[in-house]
């Protein structure tokens, strides 16, 4: 067993402190936030991830789903997929998001290229990170020939194309044009971090290059 510490702060400041504090245990991985956990817990069980500390953020008041002043939609970072999909605002104004979540949610083993088309805000930097991806599935997916449908839907110009669980919308950077918020995964990262995307979770460039010619 890999020992790890667990804290469940009740406010954002305490959570940020907890994620930045020095690890209590001897682990080569930094502390991680635990939200839904369906990805991280899975990876910890599979011995892919062993963070020194888990900072459970479920107690933080970050699950709001509401209209913004400019008629946009504020989706709290902790808003549950089901809550998002069934929310009246999302249903009426962003039915594609509802459809995507409902289509994706049950298929735990499904893989999907970056769902940028669904969650992209022109100003938002979208980064699919290690913890936002079904790394296990990506490994398995790499072992089989990608289907024509997957290839067709893979954005060729994407710098980082990862196969993610389609229900995960990992968006950061909600400030003004061009501004990036702090890294949602590790607060100690520089704002423009790439957030450690493991090469094995990335679709090899060579394969992507050849995929279209098969």
């Amino acid at each position, binding site marked *: 067993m890999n020992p790890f510490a667990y804290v469940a702060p009740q406010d954002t400041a305490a959570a940020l402190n907890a994620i930045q504090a020095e690890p209590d245990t001897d682990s080569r991985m930094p502390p991680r936030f635990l939200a839904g956990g369906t990805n991280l817990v899975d990876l910890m069980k599979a011995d892919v991830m062993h963070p020194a500390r888990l900072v459970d953020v*479920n107690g933080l008041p970050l699950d709001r789903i509401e209209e913004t002043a400019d008629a946009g939609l504020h989706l709290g970072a902790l808003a549950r997929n089901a809550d998002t999909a069934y929310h009246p605002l999302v249903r009426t104004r962003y039915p594609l998001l509802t459809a995507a979540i409902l289509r994706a949610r*049950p298929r735990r083993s499904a893989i999907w290229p970056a769902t940028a088309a669904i969650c992209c805000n022109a100003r938002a930097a979208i980064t699919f990170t290690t913890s936002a991806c079904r790394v296990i599935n990506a490994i398995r997916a790499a072992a089989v020939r990608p289907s024509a449908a997957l290839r067709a839907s893979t954005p060729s110009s994407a710098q980082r194309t990862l196969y993610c669980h389609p229900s995960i919308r990992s968006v950061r950077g909600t400030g003004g044009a061009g501004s990036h918020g702090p890294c949602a995964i590790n607060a100690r990262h520089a704002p423009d971090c790439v957030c450690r995307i493991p090469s094995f979770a990335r679709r090899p460039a060579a394969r992507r290059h050849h995929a279209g010619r098969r």
Partner: protein
Amino acid sequence: MLSNGRRINACLALAVSQNGHDITTIEGVADGEQLHPLQQAFIDHDALQCGYCTPGQICSALGLLREGEAHTTAAVRELMSGNVCRCGAYPQIVQAVSSVMGLRDTSAQAAPNVSPETVGTVAP
């Protein structure tokens, strides 16, 4: 299982993160010796074979009932699809859950009524 009345995957939930939550597993579904209607429906519809997935299926169906989002048998099938049954008892599971929800099985109507006839030709 249900955490605060909502469906979660027990295998992907860290136990300590559920501290203080109201947890319902299959053991808490029946009222003493009185089976929950879902449990009885699973028996009536023969909605299990090996039974391995049944606790999860019933808890998931319980959450589905509370969500109130499934209004057709197709929706039941879709919204229950995260629970895998290796015996393939899905038709019976959908029947059992739908019967408790008072939904009529419309799958027979949805099946294509095949009658060969020429409706047109496609130009080459």
